[in-house]
């Protein structure tokens, strides 16, 4: 990696495009300034973008940034992009799936659209604009005896509207099942510039906002979910809320830190020790090994108790330690038991519910060989885990500390039966052997015990294992990329649908016809319908016929070659393109 300086310059758009944008949103809300553009080139867990940053890829810089303030302005901007055939990307937090993929991209930053449009206590719903975050949603909902059941992992600063197009995992998935299950409707500006309501309010006369996600016909919202910001910009989203008994305000921490004395205060444990909200309690438990932990978790989940259940093991070291040094120490010494997890119990019905659920929990622990952390057993660990008293309720705040250690999510086995946790761990160990991914103290975490999210009353589990490459270490980033390329076939070989949120985007999508199968061909149809001009970073989700021809068949990039190399290594069939080179010859159940 060259250390010589090399300026990165953005490509300018024709003046008439800029003028049109200025007319649409006002000149102060359009910027081509180099410094302003620079601040839209780094994204929290976007490996591809970091690689491009390190190689000073100029296409990573947008050509201009536009800040619209309303659905109409978003629509106007998108129409301009279509008129002049300029690619565009929507942007909220910039954590993942925001990087411009093409030169001359208009970056539409939704930072001005931060209003709560409606709170309907009867319908238990809240309609918000795209720059409203989970912290805000929770605060306003709590004041009304409601909450939305969780915050997006990564983090409470996440915007539900944006997260809907990429992810939606919550700490309280046990009961609330994450974002897809908690949206009633939305308004979307499509990549063509058309605006459409999705939800009950798609039907004239049913109200301004959706009150009901059920629909007597196909639900287009399903195609916005996990579309990676390629099928439209959500300008309004109606979230479900649920009863909340924990009080309008969260309890105060014992003390507040300060900038100058942070380290001393951290050493003295002066903060990060809030009590849980009323009528809520969090229980931490440990098991001797992964198999026993899974057994216990499954029983707890299927027993019907709790609102959140996850196994976090050594990840807690990152999240709960006030300093990285302390976190590393905890990991090294396994101060946080590696096979540990927690359950959050809430007395939504009444206080008695909490006593009942605690009784059940203790019984299950007894049956499955788990131990409850308590005043009598590892109280020092319990004290260390105190931040989690509030993290489940408005997460992820200190949970974001994983990024302190260079967290970059690598693999999530999509929703699967519980034994997938063991498979995850085994696959991860393989990665570390094959790729030699040991560039961080935390890499071994997944090989000990992946992070386990228990979802949907124990019907499913999702596991996560991560890498932690330094963002300015190109070699580490490349190793991480290779591990991605390795993980995808590794999981598919074990008959999981992939290693990243089930629908992984490109170049995985077109490299693995095994999933779907031929899911990439269906996704191309969605692309044709939603973004016929291919302007909204469409190739991020799926390659078009022409792009496939170029990138998979005729002139594949280095990264794509790596994916195919691992395909071969895992014994998948050698992919042969069809005559017209726009698809693979791949026929499940061929006659």
């Amino acid at each position: 990696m060259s250390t010589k300086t090399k300026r990165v310059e953005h490509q300018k758009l024709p003046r008439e495009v800029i003028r049109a944008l200025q007319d649409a949103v006002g000149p102060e809300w359009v910027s081509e300034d180099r410094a302003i553009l620079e601040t839209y080139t780094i994204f929290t867990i976007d490996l591809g973008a970091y690689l491009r940053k390190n190689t000073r890829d100029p296409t990573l810089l947008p050509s201009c940034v536009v800040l619209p303030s309303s659905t109409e302005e978003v629509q106007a901007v998108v129409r301009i992009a279509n008129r002049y055939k300029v690619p565009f990307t929507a942007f909220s937090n910039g954590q993942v799936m925001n990087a411009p993929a093409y030169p001359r991209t208009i970056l539409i930053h939704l930072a001005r659209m931060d209003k709560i449009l409606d709170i309907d206590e009867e319908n238990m719903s809240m309609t918000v604009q795209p720059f409203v975050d989970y912290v805000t949603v929770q605060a306003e909902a709590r004041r009304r005896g409601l909450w939305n059941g969780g915050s997006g992992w990564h983090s409470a600063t996440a915007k539900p509207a944006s997260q809907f197009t990429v992810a939606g995992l919550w700490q309280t998935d046990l009961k609330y099942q994450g974002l897809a299950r908690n949206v009633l409707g939305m308004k979307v500006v499509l990549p063509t510039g058309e605006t459409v309501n999705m939800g009950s309010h798609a039907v004239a006369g049913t109200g301004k906002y959706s009150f009901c996600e059920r629909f007597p016909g196909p639900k287009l919202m399903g195609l916005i979910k996990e579309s990676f910001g390629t099928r439209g910009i959500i300008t309004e989203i109606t979230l479900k809320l649920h009863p909340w008994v924990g009080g309008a305000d969260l309890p105060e921490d014992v003390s507040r830190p300060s900038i100058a004395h942070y380290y001393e205060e951290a050493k003295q444990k002066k903060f990060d020790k809030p009590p849980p909200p009323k009528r809520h309690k969090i229980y931490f438990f440990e098991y001797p090994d992964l198999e026993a932990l899974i057994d216990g978790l499954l029983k707890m989940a299927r027993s019907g108790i709790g609102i959140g259940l996850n196994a976090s093991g050594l990840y807690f070291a990152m999240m709960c330690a006030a300093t990285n040094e302390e976190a590393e120490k905890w990991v090294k010494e396994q101060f946080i038991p590696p096979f540990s997890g927690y359950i959050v119990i809430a007395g939504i019905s009444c206080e008695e519910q909490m006593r009942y659920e605690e009784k059940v929990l203790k019984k299950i622990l007894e049956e499955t060989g788990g131990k409850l952390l308590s005043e009598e057993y590892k109280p020092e660990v319990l004290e260390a885990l105190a931040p989690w008293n509030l993290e489940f309720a408005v997460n992820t705040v200190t949970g974001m500390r994983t990024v302190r250690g260079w967290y970059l999510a690598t693999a999530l086995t999509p929703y699967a039966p519980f034994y997938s946790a063991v498979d995850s761990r085994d696959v991860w160990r393989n990665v570390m052997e094959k790729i030699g991914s040991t560039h961080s103290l935390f890499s071994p975490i997944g090989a000990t015990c992946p992070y386990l999210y228990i979802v949907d009353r124990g019907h499913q589990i999702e596991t996560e294992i991560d890498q932690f490459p330094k963002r300015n270490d190109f070699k580490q980033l490349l190793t991480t990329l290779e591990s991605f390329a390795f993980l995808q076939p590794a999981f598919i070989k074990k008959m999981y649908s992939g290693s990243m949120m089930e629908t992984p985007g490109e170049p995985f999508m077109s490299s693995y016809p095994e999933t779907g199968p031929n899911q990439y061909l269906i996704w191309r149809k969605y692309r044709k319908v939603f973004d016929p001009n291919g302007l909204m970073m469409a190739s991020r989700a799926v390659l078009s016929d022409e792009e496939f021809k170029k990138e998979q068949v005729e002139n594949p990039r280095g990264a794509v070659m790596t994916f195919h190399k691992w395909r071969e290594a895992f014994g998948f069939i050698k992919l042969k393109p069809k005559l017209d080179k726009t698809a693979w010859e791949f026929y499940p159940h061929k006659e």
Partner: protein
Amino acid sequence: MGWIVGPHKPLEEYKEEVWHCQRCNWCKIGFGWTVKSQKYHWSCPSFTKFRYDAYSAQGRMHIALALIEGMMDWKDSEKLLEIIYACDTCGACAINCIRIMENNPLEVIEALRARAVELGIGPMPAHKRFAENVKVTHNVYGEPHVDRIKWVSDDAKPLAKSDTVLFMGCTSPYRRPEIMKATARVLRASGIDFTLLPDEWCCGSPLFRTGQLELAEKMVQHNVEAMKATGARRVIFNCAGCYKTFAIDYPKIAGDLNFELMHIVELLADLYNKGKIRFNKLPTEIVTYHDPCHMGRYLGVYDAPRIILDAIKGIKLVEMERIKDQAWCCGAGGGVRAAFPDLSLWTAKQRIEEARDTGAATIVSSCPFCATNLEWAIKEMKVRMKYKDITQIAENVIVRL
């Protein structure tokens, strides 16, 4: 990371830190556990006002990254100077960033400013003006140096000699003499003898915060010498900015200071806790307390002012939503009041609205610069709200025991 408040380093030496900014976005909104409403969930005045990411700590970190790595040059941007200076250095970004990322964007922002000054590009014209003032008259306002002690009166008189020095700063004596007097009276009433530096210069805070380090160093050297000459054992401040500068910036240049530093509110709270003073009753007044950034979030002095307010019967404290480490800035600091009056006033207005939402009739704080800015907002908003410094509340009711 290992550093939180380190020595002033050249910009390049923040390379690891700027790469470490991975856009968690906690520099823009309040720490999640403390947010109580949508209206008051923002924490960064400049991002909240301008909405481009460049105006957040994250944006400035990434601009610094590009400059350090040579991906961008200073002259590539017309907005660069405005971006790096339209920040009141309140530290709302820093406290969250430290707590979550162990990173301190504030130091990077100040390093950007120092580099801008070195290159002759910065600071903003208004900052150059007050630097000139400091050079000539040793105060930011360009007022006659001798007038620094014009506020002194019989009932607010320092001694010729004492091992306790009351450091006046610039704003109190030149712009808020009533606060200066109240401070002196409170000290007298508490039985605390104090003196003044015979030749006090500006603490240097406005210079530090705007990257004018060379001149700032001269302030440090002068004041430290003057302090030593008085044989000071203890230095009392009534300005949060001066207090923080002495506590944090001075040791970076002058090494360990051999005198104790404290703010007047800390002294009073300590005396109260030790049973050496008490307070008489006041007519009922609902107040809310504004934590000055430099003393609150930066140095962690949260409890002392609240102990005092709690001790005065009749004073009913109703807290704002954003308090202590999460306090919203008054908008004056970091050179913003001088160079970006619109931003400064807008920020202060947000704070006054937040104060009014508590139902309080009075907003109380313990920094004359906060006083100036918040009172400006009250005046512009034409609302019925008073501003009082804690010393002004305490001065008439303090009783020595």
